[in-house]
C-alpha cells in the first residue's frame, strides 16, 4: 500500500491510532529521545540518541517474582509484559534493520517469551534518510540503505510538505487504514519524485567500510593481531557503544531480593555490556577477556564475524552511534578497516 500524507495530517493520523501508544523522537535536555506523544509529531530529528530497541527489549524487565517461607518450596509468579501496543514513529532505516537482527536472537534462535510478548505489540513507522543524519552513517557498507524498509511496518519518506507513506507489513496497512481518509493516492509524479529522492539518498556520500563482505574471514584471521591492543588503548570500558547500539542484546539476570525472611523478590533481566570488565569474569577470578583489547575485539567480531556466521548477516546496521558517542574516539569503521586491510 502506497499513499501520500500531507504533513499537516500527521497529527490527525496519530490521533486516529487509538489502539496504539504512539512514541516519537522529542528533543529534551539536548538529546533526541522517543517519548509518548499525542499528536504534534514533527519528524525533524537526525537520529535518536538511543535506538528504539528498548521497546521490545527494555533495559530492565521482571521475569517473575518469588516468595518462599522457610521450609516450604518457593512460589514463583511469572510477570508478563503488559499488553500496551506501541507505535514508534520516526525510526531510521538503520534502526529498522536492527529489529530483524534482534528477532534473530530472541525469536528465531530461541523463543524468548518476554521479548516476543513485547515485540508483537510494537509497530515501527520508519523515516527514510534523504541525506545521512549523522556524519558517521555507514549503512550502505553493511548491506543497508537509507531507504531500507527492513524491520519497519510503515515507511515514510519526506517529500517537502508531504510524506510518501508505504505500508511494509499487514500491521502497517492496518495502521494506515485506521485513518484512511487522511491519505491520498500517490500520483505518477509522486512516485517519480520518490524514486528520485531515494536514488539521491543512496548516492549521498557516507563513511565506508572497505571490505564488508571479506570482513568475517579477515577478522577470523586477525584474532591475534597486535592492532587490537593499539586500537583499544584509549578504551575506558564504559557501556555507551553497546547500550546505544540498535542490535546489542546481551543481558544479565539478577535476583532482586526485597525481603530475606520470608524470602521475597523478583528475577530481573537488565542490559549488560561486553565492554564491562566483569562481563566474562568467572567466579574463579579468571577472566578470558581480561583487557580492553580482547573486549573491543569481541564487539567487532560479534558484529562482523560471529553473527554473520550464525545468521548470514552483519549485526551492525551502520547507524554510527558508537562512533559518535565514544568519549575517547574509538571508531568501529576505522577499526574494521584497519584490521581487514592488514590481512592479505
Amino acid at each position: 500500500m502506497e499513499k501520500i500524507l500531507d504533513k499537516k495530517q500527521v497529527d490527525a493520523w496519530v490521533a486516529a491510532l487509538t489502539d496504539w501508544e504512539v512514541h516519537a523522537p522529542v528533543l529534551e535536555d539536548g538529546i533526541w529521545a522517543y517519548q509518548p506523544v499525542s499528536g504534534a509529531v514533527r519528524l525533524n530529528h537526525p537520529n535518536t540518541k538511543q535506538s528504539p530497541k528498548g521497546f521490545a527489549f527494555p533495559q530492565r524487565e521482571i521475569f517473575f517474582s518469588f516468595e518462599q517461607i522457610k521450609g516450604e518450596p518457593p512460589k514463583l509468579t511469572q510477570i508478563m509484559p503488559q499488553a500496551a501496543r506501541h507505535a514508534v514513529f520516526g525510526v531510521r532505516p538503520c534502526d529498522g534493520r536492527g529489529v530483524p537482527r534482534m528477532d534473530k536472537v530472541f525469536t528465531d534462535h530461541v523463543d524468548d517469551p518476554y521479548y516476543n510478548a513485547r515485540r508483537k505489540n510494537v509497530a515501527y513507522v520508519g523515516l527514510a534518510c534523504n541525506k545521512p543524519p549523522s556524519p558517521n552513517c555507514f549503512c550502505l557498507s553493511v548491506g543497508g540503505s537509507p531507504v531500507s524498509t527492513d524491520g519497519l511496518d510503515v515507511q515514510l519518506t519526506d517529500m517537502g510538505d508531504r510524506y510518501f507513506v508505504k505500508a511494509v507489513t499487514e500491521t502497517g496497512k492496518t495502521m494506515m487504514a485506521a485513518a484512511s481518509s487522511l491519505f491520498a493516492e500517490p500520483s505518477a509524479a509522486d512516485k517519480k519524485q520518490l524514486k528520485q529522492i531515494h536514488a539521491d539518498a543512496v548516492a549521498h556520500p557516507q563513511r565506508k567500510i572497505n571490505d564488508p563482505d571479506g570482513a568475517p574471514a579477515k577478522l577470523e584471521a586477525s584474532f591475534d593481531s597486535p592492532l587490537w591492543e593499539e586500537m583499544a588503548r584509549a578504551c575506558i570500558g564504559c557501556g555507551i557503544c553497546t547500550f546505544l547500539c540498535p542490535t546489542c542484546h546481551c543481558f544479565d539476570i539478577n535476583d532482586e531480593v526485597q525481603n530475606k525472611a520470608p524470602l521475597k523478590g523478583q528475577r530481573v533481566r537488565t542490559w549488560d555490556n561486553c565492554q564491562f570488565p566483569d562481563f566474562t569474569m568467572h567466579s574463579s577470578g579468571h577472566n578470558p577477556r581480561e583487557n580492553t583489547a580482547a573486549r573491543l575485539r569481541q564487539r567487532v567480531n560479534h558484529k562482523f564475524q560471529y553473527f554473520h556466521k550464525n545468521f548470514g548477516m552483519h549485526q551492525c546496521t551502520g547507524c554510527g552511534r558508537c562512533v559518535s558517542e565514544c568519549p575517547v574516539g574509538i571508531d568501529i569503521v576505522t577499526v574494521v578497516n584497519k584490521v581487514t586491510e592488514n590481512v592479505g
Partner: protein
Amino acid sequence: MTKKRTGVFVCHCGTNIAATVDVAKVAREMADENTVAFTQEYVYMCSEPGQESVVQAIKDNELDSVVVTCCSPNLHEKTFRDNAKRAGINNFTCEIANIREQCSWVHNDKAKGTEKAIKISRSVVRRVNRNKPLEAIAVNVTRKAMVIGGGIAGIQAALDIANAGIEVILVEKQATIGGRMLQLSETFPTLDCSQCVLSPKMVEVKRHPMVKLMTYSEVQELNGSVGNFQVKVLKKPTFVDPDKCKICDHCTEVCPVVVPNEYELNLNARRAIYIPYAQAIPASFTLDENACLGLNPVVCGKCKDVCEAGAINYDMRPETVTENVGAVVVATGFDLYGQENMPELGGGKLEDVLDGLQFERLISASGATKGHVLRPSDHKEPKEVVFIQCVGSRDPAKHCAYCSKICCMYTAKHARLYKKHVPDGRAYVFYIDIRSGGKGYEEFVQRTMEDDDTLYLRGRVSKLYRHNGKVRVLGTDTLTGQNVEIDADMVVLAQAMVPSKGTTEIAKVLKIGRDKDGFLAEAHPKLRPVESVTAGIYLAGAAQAPKDIPETVAQAGAAASKVIALLSQTTLSRSPLIARVRPSHCTGCGMCVDACPFIAIRLEGGKAVVNEALCEGCGSCSATCLRAAIDVKNVTQLQIHEMIEACLA
C-alpha cells in the same frame, strides 16, 4: 560452607520486657529467619536455670551462634558470651539484642513495641549470621600505675597500690600534695586536726620506695589502652632543687614580689618564691615563674643570692616525660562553685562574705590569721556570723541541681569551731534541710544546735549587702513565716561542690566521660562505681561526685584494689573487634592511615596494614575507605548493610 545454626533466646525479664513486648511473637518471627535453628523464651534468661538452658540448647541443637534478646549488652553480654564458651562455641558468635532499655522500657504501645523488638532482634540475627569466631587478643600488662591528683584520694590510692608492691606514679599539679584536705582546719564529726591526720600519709608517700612523686606536673596526653597506657607528663620548673632546699625561708624575705596566695584562697599574700604550707611535700620552695621579675640575675636574682644551699636554679626548663603504666586512677577533686555566680549574695564582691574553704583557712592554726577568727575587712573578731547552706546546690533552675552532700556537716562544724574561738559570738545557720546521714553525723549537728546554741533558721537568704560596716542578711524563716534581717559581722557561704577545673581538663585529656554536672562518669552507677567508662581508668574522690573524707578514702581504696587486681594479671585480653584489611581491594591510598586516631595503620608494600596492638576498633578507617577494603571484624559493612535491611523489612 555449612548453613549457620543460630539460637535465639528471648527473655521476658519478668514483666520488664514481657509487659510491653509480645515475647512469644518475637520468638516466632525469629524462627522464620533462615539461619535460626532454635528459639526459646524464658522468664529470666540471666537466672541460673535460664543460663543453663542456653548452654543446654546450644549443645542439644548443635548451635553455632547465639542471639539473646534481653537487656542492654552492657549488662549481660559477658554473661551470655561466657555461656556460649561453656557450651563449646566461640564466645564472639554470641550477640545481645537490646529490647529492654531500647524498647520495652520506653514504649507502652505493645503492638508497636513488639514490632520494634522484632526489628531489633532480626537485625542482630542477621549480624550474627556473619559473625566470625574470634579470639580475644592477649596483651602484656605494664605493672605500674599512675594516680592523677595528690589530694587525700590520690594519696590513699597511691599508698594502697604501692603497699601491694606495685610501682605507682603520683602526679600533682600544684607544688605540694595534700589537696583540699590540707586546707581544712578540723574535720567532722570528730573535730580532729585535718593536717595532723594527713601529714603522716604525705610523708609516707614521699618516702615510699614504690611511689614516684611528681608534683608541679600535669598530665598532657594519654595514649594506648588498658594494661598499656603511655602518659605524657609535663614537669613544670620550680627553679628550686628540692634535694638542696633547706626551707630556711631566706628567699621569701628578700623576694620583692607580692602576689595573692592561692593556697590561702587569697586571704593573704605570698612572694614570687614561696612554700605553700609548712607541711608541704615536697618540703621545698617553688619559684612562681609568672610572678617572678624575670628569672634573671641582672633583673633581680635576690633569692639566688641569699640561698646558701645553692638550691635555686634559674635555668630549669619545662620537661615532658612519657610514663608507661597499666592503669590510671583519676582523683582530681573539686572546686567550690564560684561566688561570682551568686549576684544576689554579693557575687564575691562583698567584704566579709567568705566561702567555706576560706573560712577553713581563717580558723586553721596554720592559716592567714594563725587560727584567730578575724574578719578580713577590719581584722576584728566577728560577733555575729551567718552561715548559709545550699548556696548553688539543689537549685536546678539557676545553679547545680544536685546536693553537695557535705555542706550540712561542715557548716555545723564551722558553727562549732566559731563558737570555740569566739565563745561570746552568735552563729546563725540558714538551711533548707539538714542532711546528716553518717556515723555520728546527726549527733554532731544536734550538739551544734543545742550545746553551742547555734540558731538554725529554715529558709533561703534572698539578699546580702553591706550596711553600716556590716553585712545585712535578708532572709525568710519558713517555719515561722517571718522575714529575717540580720546585720552580720561576717557571712560564710556553703558554696556547692563542683568538679575542679583540673577535672574538666583531665577528662578531655584522658577521653573519659563526664556526667551532666561535669563530674567524672562511672561505668555503672551501682555496680561499677569506681571505674570510668574506659577500661583501666578508675575514679576516686570528689572528682566523681561530692563526698566527704571517709567516703573518699573508701573509694580510693576501692579504686586501688581494682588497679591491684588488674595489674596482678600478666596478660590482659583485648577485644578482637579490630580492623582488618582486604588486600585485594586496598589500593594503598592511605586515607585510613590519615583517618586512624590511634596511628594503628601504616602502608606497607602499597597496602594498608593494621597494627593489632594499637587498633581500638573504632571503624573510622572503614567509613573513610572508598572501596570497602577495611572493615572492623564482626561489625563489617556487609553486616551493617544487612542490619539496615532488617530494620526496614
